[in-house]
């Protein structure tokens, strides 16, 4: 059937069923005669990005049949984006995974859950130190928490890392390096109050559209907001910007230094703020080359000297942004009456100097005093719905423990062991492998030192998202002693190489909790059953843990099962048995246990039931005298944050220098590890598009979204296209030193790169751009740089020509 025919038929079927159902309802004698759509509506945060919009989910006959923006939700105020409006359809792709599958003789064959769990338990029991879990910022909070406890507590194994390493690790090190504690001080309320919005290598019009609209819609109410887009290509965000400053990839560091240089030279930095709230810091070494999260202190005078060379003219040379525009930025920051919000996401995080550029942008805001007032905030956005809630707060990173703790600190390990009722010394002090190292070791033969033997992947698709796929994923094929377990909802690039596939429940097929970009913790209930034998990820881990318990593992220091679940009478419930999993709310119990971790770093969470009542609450959430729970919008600011000492105004109460001050860092501009040259003359940047979410495993199964953007493409500048003889739709090859792919060229497309640069989105599983990307990473955050590497373009064939 042709696509058009299919759509037509389904539309007709839909219309026909519409009429039948409504007629039937009309005929139904309803004495009250009240209009009722027949659906049961409940709230849930959207499944996709880190914005954290709330949707209303309309359920009928056991199916999600409609979605509406939640009008009461403060994040989105009743609006959604194209993905959010269609989120319900993501559950109903016809190829959902519905039974456990084991690879036998190169084919995936169905097996029972018990067989599958036994295989996982065997792998863990026989290789407890070379087993790893690769998780996700899409893990719900309880999912991440149970995996964290299983690995670091149950197995004394720190090889657990989330895909969020690829996404926001540099934001974390930026916050910790500057404020001593992770996550933004501001929140989305800043978007309602700012006079100036600066997007640093960021395209929120497509990636966080609801937040971007929150700003630009103010213009239709007559407010004046200046939007400055500092980017490497024109995007839909640029269309709304007052200033577009196009910079040479990597040179954002020089721009930030240029602003600070001028603020100091002109004496227009905020002297009172700096005096009271800031220390200065740098990396060790003549050339600042010994990079660390801690660094060493420096004086203001030294800081001034380091900035000496970053004159507007020099910055223009490095960045391509005119000296006048650098002056314009400095002048804006020098104005104390303007409220300035900076937003960034992958452009600053996926950067081989990611920690540095994050610290530098915080530094610009601190030096100028544009901090701590509504509208004055440096705010990083997250790409995944619970990158903050699960990866960062539960601490499912190879070096972390829940609640902002790290494995390297003995008191942190002991606090965790106490909460988990484990003997001191259980948790290993040595960080596990971060994402790149984990996959490198997994894909390296054991004989050659590849000491990860089994990886259990949950809620993510590394076969499409890891950089340099030939090195970090595809090498797995044919390695007999390496075993890949994948829990997912659809077949993906990752399940292709999986030895064992576990079918998972998704989104409102299970209970869940997420934490969004503005510290907002959100909760939802299961509304529909998962298809076939698909089951909750929490249950999968719980059931494996129980098998291990029966073999003598997973015991606390009293010999009890580490994951005992109780009912309200305090009796143990066999929740590891699927038939009894929903006898109690397992999520609630795991969350209440996790909550105990959250007070150390003042990230206090409310009891589970408070989140049931709300559309999310921003931590720290504190109980008030009247028994209600109050959220915090502006951290470190006395007027809103209850942890700030009275009279301090602003206090960084987790300061790394212990004096309540933030650290303003100096980092010199440094060249990226790979730059265009004669052989590979173009900059390749990768990213996302509005219609698809990450690898498209969900959105490519929504007819409306796949129809809108059915295939990946490469954006090419007209000048480059002309010199290469390429026209719109022509198939071109992209070659890099890692790999090569062929895809259609788009000239003057969705985004418009300048000459010498190309852009490719990564959503299309048939056209894997990560075969080409570089696996170099920030030395501190270990986050790789997907935004720049050297590439060349080759014409392959004309549009429409046969292959």
């Amino acid at each position, binding site marked *: 059937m042709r*696509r058009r025919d*299919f759509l037509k038929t389904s539309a*007709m079927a*839909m*219309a026909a069923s*519409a*009429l039948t159902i*409504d007629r039937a309802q*009309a005929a139904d004698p309803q004495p009250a005669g009240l*209009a009722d*759509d027949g*659906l049961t*509506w409940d709230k849930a945060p959207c499944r996709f990005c880190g914005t954290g919009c709330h949707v209303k989910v*309309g359920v009928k006959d056991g199916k999600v*049949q*409609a979605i509406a*923006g939640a*009008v*009461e939700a403060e994040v989105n*105020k*009743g*609006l*959604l984006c*194209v993905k959010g409006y*269609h989120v*319900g*359809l993501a559950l*109903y*792709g*016809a*190829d959902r995974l519905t039974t456990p599958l084991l690879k036998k003789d190169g084919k995936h064959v169905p097996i029972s859950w018990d067989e599958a769990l036994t295989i996982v338990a065997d792998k863990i029991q026989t290789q407890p130190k070379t087993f790893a879990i690769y998780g996700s910022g899409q893990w719900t909070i309880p999912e991440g928490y149970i995996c964290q406890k299983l690995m670091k507590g149950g197995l004394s194994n720190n090889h657990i890392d989330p895909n969020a390493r690829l996404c926001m690790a540099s934001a974390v090190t930026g916050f910790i390096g500057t404020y001593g504690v992770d996550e933004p001080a501001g929140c989305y309320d800043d978007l309602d109050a700012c006079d100036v919005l600066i997007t640093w290598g960021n395209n929120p019009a497509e990636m966080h*559209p*609801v937040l*971007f*609209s*929150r700003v*630009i*819609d103010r213009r*239709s109410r007559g407010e004046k907001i200046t939007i400055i887009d500092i980017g490497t290509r024109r995007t*839909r965000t640029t269309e709304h910007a007052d200033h577009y400053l196009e910079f040479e990839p990597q040179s954002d560091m020089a721009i930030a230094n240029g602003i600070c240089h001028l603020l100091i030279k002109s004496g227009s930095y905020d002297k009172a703020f700096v005096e009271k709230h800031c220390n200065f810091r740098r990396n060790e070494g003549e050339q600042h080359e010994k990079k660390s999260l801690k660094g060493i202190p420096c004086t203001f005078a030294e800081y001034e000297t380091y900035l000496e060379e970053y004159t507007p003219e020099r910055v223009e040379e490095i960045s391509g942004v005119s000296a006048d525009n650098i002056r314009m930025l400095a002048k804006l920051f020098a104005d104390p009456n303007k409220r300035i919000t900076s937003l960034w996401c992958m452009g600053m995080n996926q950067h081989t100097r990611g920690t540095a550029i994050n610290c530098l942008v915080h530094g610009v805001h601190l030096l100028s005093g544009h901090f701590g007032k509504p509208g004055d905030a440096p705010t990083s956005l997250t790409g995944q719905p619970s990158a903050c809630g699960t990866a960062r707060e539960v601490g499912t990173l190879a070096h972390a423990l829940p609640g902002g703790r790290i494995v390297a600190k003995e008191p942190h390990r002991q606090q965790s062991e106490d909460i988990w009722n484990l003997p001191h010394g259980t948790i290993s002090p040595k960080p596990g492998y971060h994402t790149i190292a984990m996959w490198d070791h997994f894909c390296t033969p054991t004989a050659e030192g590849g000491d990860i033997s089994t990886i259990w992947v949950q809620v993510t698709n590394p076969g499409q998202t890891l950089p340099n796929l030939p090195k970090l994923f595809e090498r797995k094929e044919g390695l007999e002693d390496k075993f890949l377990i994948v829990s997912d909802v659809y077949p993906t690039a990752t399940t292709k190489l999986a030895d064992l596939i576990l079918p998972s429940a998704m989104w409102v097929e299970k209970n869940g909790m997420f934490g969004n970009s503005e510290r907002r913790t959100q909760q939802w209930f299961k509304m529909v059953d998962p298809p076939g034998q698909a089951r909750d990820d929490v249950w999968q881990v719980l059931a494996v843990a129980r098998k291990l318990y029966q073999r003598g593992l997973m015991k606390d220091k009293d010999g009890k099962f580490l994951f005992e679940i109780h009912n309200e009478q305090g009796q143990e419930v066999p929740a590891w048995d699927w038939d009894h999993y929903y006898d109690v709310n397992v999520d609630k119990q795991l969350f209440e246990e996790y909550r105990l971790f959250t007070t150390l770093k003042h990230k206090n969470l409310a009891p589970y039931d408070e989140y049931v009542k709300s559309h999310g609450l921003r931590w720290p959430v504190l109980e008030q005298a009247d028994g209600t729970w109050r959220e915090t919008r502006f951290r470190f600011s006395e007027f809103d944050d209850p942890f700030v000492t009275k009279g301090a105004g602003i206090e960084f109460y987790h300061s790394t220098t212990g004096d309540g001050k933030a650290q303003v860092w100096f980092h010199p501009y440094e060249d990226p590890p790979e730059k265009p040259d004669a052989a590979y003359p173009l900059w390749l940047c990768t990213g996302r598009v509005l219609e698809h979410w990450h690898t498209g495993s969900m959105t490519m199964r*929504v007819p*409306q979204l*796949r*129809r*809108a*953007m*059915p*295939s*990946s*493409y490469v954006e090419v500048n007209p000048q480059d296209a002309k010199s290469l003889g390429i*026209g*719109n*739709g*022509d198939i071109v090859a992209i070659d890099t030193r890692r790999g090569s792919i062929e895809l*259609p060229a788009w000239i*003057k*497309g969705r985004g418009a790169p300048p000459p010498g640069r190309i852009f490719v989105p990564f959503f299309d599983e048939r056209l894997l751009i990560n075969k080409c990307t570089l696996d170099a990473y920030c030395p501190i955050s270990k986050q790789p740089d997907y935004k720049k590497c050297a590439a060349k373009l080759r014409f392959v064939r004309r*549009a*429409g*020509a046969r292959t």
Partner: protein
Amino acid sequence: MSPLADSKPLHVALAAIAGIALIGYLAGTGGSVPVVSHGGGADLAKSAPSAVPQAVPYTQMTNVDMSRNANWNSGDLAALRPGADTRKEPASQAETDAALADRASNRAFAGAPPTIPHSIDQVSAASCLACHGEGLIVGERRASRISHPAYHNCTQCHVAAAPSAVVGTREAPPSIAVTKPEPSGGPRANLGAPPQMPHPAWMRQDCRSCHGPAGRPGLQTSHPERLNCQQCHTAAANSEQRTSMPPATLGQ
């Protein structure tokens, strides 16, 4: 002077036109679309809608923006807006059924924002509103009037058609979704009572979008002169998300 000599300039002109047409034809049949500079968009946006769009001379074809909707405000769109609202006969059931089937064809479920059934080049919200601000009727085709306050980023909610000339098309993914059907008419409390709204009013604050003169004939009201719809037609509380909590207001 002979008639032949008289027509010589004409022949030259005809030959030139034929030549240019041939070149134009060949260029048009070439595999790839020629790259043209953007340029014109901003200027066009400033000019007031005045005249009917002019065809582009072949000699200027490489210099102008030929993309879709590029000249969205260069024509006299006012002439295409629906006329004064006047009382009319209620729509027939057949008209209503056709209108509902048509509605369902470009949205995922009842209540989903309609997908854009034509290709666009996103220039600005103004380019969408040129037609969709007040609604337009061109022959059989209707551009519906915007149903909600104007926002700035239309493609945030409305899925655009694919850039198929560039990236081609693909089969729709097989889906087993069952979606909320379009309601057909709201229930009445008793014979003769005004029908209740069978759908929420959220994002459909302007009823004229569907029920006014630019709406599909099967959905148009019989009494367009009455402008305070909710005086008589009540909204359904369950789908309006009315609970104990006060609604967050849009940006106030």
